[in-house]
């Protein structure tokens, strides 16, 4: 437990003290929630404006989770490798699994904080949601899938992109591009059919659609993402990405040359 707690403490402090991490993970999505809530909803009928703001807030919450997993995590891994910390801890009786667990728990805590802040700002701006307790529980499960998928991609980037700036830029790039192409930042209905197919396979966007469907309704999700095969695909691909990331990190980052 000590090693997990040590890595958790170190990683969470590093996330919370880096201004760029705070800005891109929390500040940037909040800016878009504010812009979306006050600039892009002026022509929307009053009876659905709250739910539109809700859908925008969900998308930005997902964007925050993506940035945390796909940019902050690889940045943190690459930073530790570049400054020789991984070399140092490899010389100590430290288990890679405990290091990984500590890192991931810290990321989970930071991602949850980011998500809650983004949603809170959305709520203050007038975002409204409609859900039952079960739907809320299911939404949390989909948030966890987004976390697993994003951190899996993040671990892959952190393992294969050796330098800090390269890892962060790759993560940010992939976050922005995949969010734009998969319907996280663009309404699903407006995507061309090839990208709609991608949106259904990419677990992060399909989980985003699921949460939107559960909390604000199908018209905002663009389709029903809760079919059995769709949910199974979302779970499987998210777990696959996470497993691949985990294997790459533990086998390659900790590999003795």
């Amino acid at each position, binding site marked *: 437990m*000590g090693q997990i707690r*040590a890595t958790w403490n170190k990683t969470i402090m590093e996330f919370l*003290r880096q201004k760029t991490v705070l800005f891109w993970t929390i500040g940037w999505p909040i800016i878009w929630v504010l812009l979306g809530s006050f600039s892009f909803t002026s022509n929307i009928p009053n009876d659905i404006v709250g739910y539109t703001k809700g859908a925008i807030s969900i998308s930005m919450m997902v964007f925050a989770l993506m940035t945390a997993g796909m940019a902050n995590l690889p940045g943190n891994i690459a930073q530790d490798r570049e400054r020789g910390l991984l*070399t140092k801890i490899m*010389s*100590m009786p430290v288990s890679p699994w405990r290091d990984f667990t500590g890192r991931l728990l810290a990321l989970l805590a930071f991602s949850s904080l980011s998500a809650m802040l983004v949603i809170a700002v959305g709520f203050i701006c007038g975002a409204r949601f409609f859900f039952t307790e079960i739907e809320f529980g299911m939404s949390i499960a989909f948030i966890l899938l987004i976390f697993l998928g994003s951190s899996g991609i993040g671990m892959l980037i952190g393992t294969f992109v050796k330098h800090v700036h390269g890892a962060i830029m790759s993560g940010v790039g992939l976050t922005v591009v995949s969010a734009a192409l998969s319907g996280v930042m663009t309404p699903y209905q407006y995507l061309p059919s090839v990208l709609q197919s991608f949106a259904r396979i990419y677990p992060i966007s399909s989980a985003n659609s699921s949460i939107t469907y559960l909390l604000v309704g199908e018209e905002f999700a663009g389709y029903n993402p809760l079919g059995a095969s769709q949910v199974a695909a979302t779970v499987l691909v998210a777990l696959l990405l996470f497993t691949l990331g985990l294997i790459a990190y533990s086998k390659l980052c900790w590999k003795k040359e």
Partner: protein
Amino acid sequence: MQAIQSYAVFAENVTKKYEKQEVLREVNLKIGRGEFYALMGPNGSGKTTLASILASVKSPDSGKIMIFGEKPEDAKKITGYVPQENFSSPILSGKENLMYFAELLGYSKKEAADIVQELLNKVGLLEDADKRVSQYSGGMRKRLEVATILFPGLKLLILDEPTTGLDPSARRRFLGLIQELRNEKTTILLITHIGADADLASRVGLIDRGVIIAEDQPEKLKKNSGLENVVNIETSFKNEQVSSLLSKFSEKMKVLETETGYKVFTENVEKVTPRIVRSLDQIGCKVTKIETTQPSLEDVFFKLTERKVREVD
């Protein structure tokens, strides 16, 4: 013959290749318990690779290694390694960094807090414990990183080029800390390319191109090298004529070219020095600085490898 278990470090026929380049070639190294051993060599000589193999960060291609009678991976709990890089987290305080390492080593929060306080005191950072490492000087940061190997129970300390990049006063303070460790009878392996640092050790190994070419006490290495004294000369220019003129003042015709002038090795410094100045003056070469020194470990290294200073810079 001593038993392997009686050595702090026992390495036999260790080889390591990176792709096709052989970095270590059948290296043999034996360091006694409580000994302060310095491994000295230029960049690319294989010393960092050897250190990281002993620290169980890298694996050898072949050879046998034992740390206090155990395989390096089983000896992690008694081996402390400070790599060359500044590995401490700059956005955490000195205290937070050490707490991280203490908890990694399995100390409870309470135990860790007590030990960290002690270590910060030992390395002279108690007053700056709560400052972020980004506000530390290079010397302070290095002392903090050395503190990570001062936790109780560590018997072998491996320090890889710890004084590189430190200013003279930080370096002096740092070496003072190493001397204190030496007094505590801990086994120390210091990796360095600086002769003056290696001079502090009880035994020095000179490594070149993956081979330990000489090994002895620093004074003995110097004495046995045949290098008695060195006249260091800085000249207004350097050329073949100056070089061959200077070689006449060395009994063994031994002259090394340096960045700013030459080193002349001679047994008769007092006689030779004024004659060198006169002779150089006669050919129009001004002597801008001249001083005599005892041979350094660097000189011994160059003598043994027959290489010029600029070749290894």
